[in-house]
């Protein structure tokens, strides 16, 4: 009798034991570790930006007092205005605004041209294989491993012969060509992930090379186009080497101009203006990231990583 009641008790115990989700402690060692490290790393990355913003909002006397981490006592936007419209580079004293518009004029046609050509390249390499298309692709990929510096001089000669040296058009051409390997790879990998049957169905439906490209492929590949735009905008906007080599002072892109402002040897080092100018220059890629961040991640996940 006693035995039996004991057994009953045990079954009740088993039933009232752990059930459902296992509770987790919020302040476990694991969590402290993870969030602690994350916090430190983000501080490390945010600090330079903090210093830049603060410095750019201070007047020179305040900067000379030191305390680079301290917020400004007296907020002034003058450095920003000066950086944009009246900082001197060489003989010109119209600030970064000239470089900004030069960069825009370089950026828009380069991005458009390189993406247009590379997407058609990728599409043709996947869906319209021709004799030697694999070889062509290999050569193209090889191109992305060659350091740019090696090709500078030959390109100078080529541009001179084409009559494009020192012109915006020349720089646009160079940017489009150099964007080709990585962009073609990007598009090819994305289009590989589009089911082949879709392409076959479109052919049975009577669509040709361009018909399939514009009506089927293009509408399906917005994410990868966003990725390409971001890559190209950041790449071309931040480019310094090609800008300084293939253009002349009146059409220098913003990065070159920024360098000339910051690295000027004469006169007082205007840290606040330099900081403001640097941030102005970095603004365009930043804005693009913020606008299209979500699509960017989706595009990367959709095709860029797959082999």
């Amino acid at each position, binding site marked *: 009798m006693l035995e039996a009641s004991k057994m009953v008790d045990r079954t009740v115990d088993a039933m009232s034991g752990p059930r459902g989700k296992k509770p987790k402690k919020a302040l476990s060692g694991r969590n402290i570790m993870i969030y602690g490290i994350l916090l430190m790393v983000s501080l490390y990355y945010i600090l330079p930006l903090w210093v830049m913003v603060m410095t750019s909002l201070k007047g020179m006397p305040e900067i000379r007092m030191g305390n680079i981490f301290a917020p400004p006592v007296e907020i002034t936007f003058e450095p920003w205005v000066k950086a944009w419209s009246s900082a001197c580079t060489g003989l010109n004293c119209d600030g970064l605004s000239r470089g900004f518009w030069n960069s825009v004029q370089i950026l828009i046609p380069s991005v458009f041209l390189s993406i247009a050509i590379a997407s058609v390249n990728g599409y043709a390499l996947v869906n319209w294989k021709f004799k030697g298309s694999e070889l062509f692709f290999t050569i193209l990929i090889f191109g992305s491993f060659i350091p740019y510096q090696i090709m500078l001089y030959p390109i100078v000669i080529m541009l001179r012969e084409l009559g494009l040296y020192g012109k915006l058009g020349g720089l646009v051409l160079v940017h489009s060509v150099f964007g080709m390997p990585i962009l073609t790879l990007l598009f090819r990998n994305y289009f590989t992930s589009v089911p082949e*049957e*879709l392409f*076959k*169905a479109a*052919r*049975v439906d*009577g*669509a040709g090379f361009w018909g399939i490209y514009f009506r089927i492929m293009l509408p*399906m590949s917005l994410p990868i186009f966003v990725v390409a735009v971001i890559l190209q905008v950041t790449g071309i906007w931040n480019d310094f080497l090609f800008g300084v080599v293939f253009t002349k002072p009146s059409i220098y892109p913003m990065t070159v101009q920024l360098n000339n402002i910051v690295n000027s040897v004469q006169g007082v080092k205007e840290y606040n203006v330099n900081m403001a100018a640097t941030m102005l220059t970095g603004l365009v890629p930043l804005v693009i990231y913020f606008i299209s961040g979500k699509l960017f991640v989706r595009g990367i996940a959709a095709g860029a990583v797959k082999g």
Partner: protein
Amino acid sequence: MTYSVQIKDLDLHFGAVKVLQGLNLNISEGEFIVLLGSSGCGKSTLLNCVAGLLEPTDGQIFIKGNNVTWEEPSKRGIGMVFQSYALYPQMTVRGNMSFGLKNAKVPKAEIETRVNRAAEILQITHLLDRKPSALSGGQRQRVAIGRALVRDVDVFLFDEPLSNLDAKLRADLRVELKRLHNQLKNTMIYVTHDQVEAMTLADRIAIMKGGVIMQLGSPDEIYNRPQNRYVADFIGSPSMNFLDGEYRNGTFVKGDLSIPVQGYAFATQPVEGGAITVGIRPEHIVTGPLVASAPYRTTTTVDLVEPMGSDTLVWAKIAGEPFRIRMDGQATVAVGDTLEIGIDPSRASVFDAKSEERL
């Protein structure tokens, strides 16, 4: 006589791999042909050649008497339905169905009528303004069929259209496809690896292996008179039992087993003492009271029982070989039971053991 589709000496090689070899196939007007085979047998490749999506290495393809070997897919008078549906994701159902007609520059009013008519036949009128992502698998496949339907083509090509659907939906759509064929009377070429689809849908089945057609015939012929051991083994589930032995004086002999095969209609008489294979379908082996009337009777022991509801599959051994017997689903049978079975040699298939051809 002009055939609807005529394939002449078709070869297709990918490098050193010969996917299709000297393939000939004539398909009559309004016929439902099923290309059946395991994966890699070249059935989809053949279909893609007919569609013009793959270029043959050699040979010719005629559709309605026209040589279309070098013709673009859209100019061949074919409509194709794919396994993955291949609907254009950014277009509505209506857009999907009218895409081909727009490319062919058909007038708008005509497109409207044709799309509506096809939608009515397939009962998808209420879905016309939806995107493919808002449709179920069965609905998507219906739209894919509709896309082929609006183009008013002579020949429909189906590339495993039901393989992506679940079992119940597959059975439903199979019936619908058959109904559609009865209604439209178009020529249809249908690729599948599912033998039930092949048996139920086809006027004629072509069983393929290694790029050649092993047998072309009606489902009845394929099932009851397989031309070779491969076909016999491939068709039927559970598959046929094979016994390898010798032919001696009108009897099949294997060890101490001897089955009289006088009742069997030999196409070519086997050589005395020649090696032959007898194939017996599990469902052609009788048990219970029917055994008494069977020409050949024996007993065996049950090794394993697989109840499948509608029927029960029993594994036993005959002359040391594993043997499948299909019994009624209500039969009470347990492992270790002694089972009396009867075989009718006239329903069996006999093959030459060497050439594996039917005798």
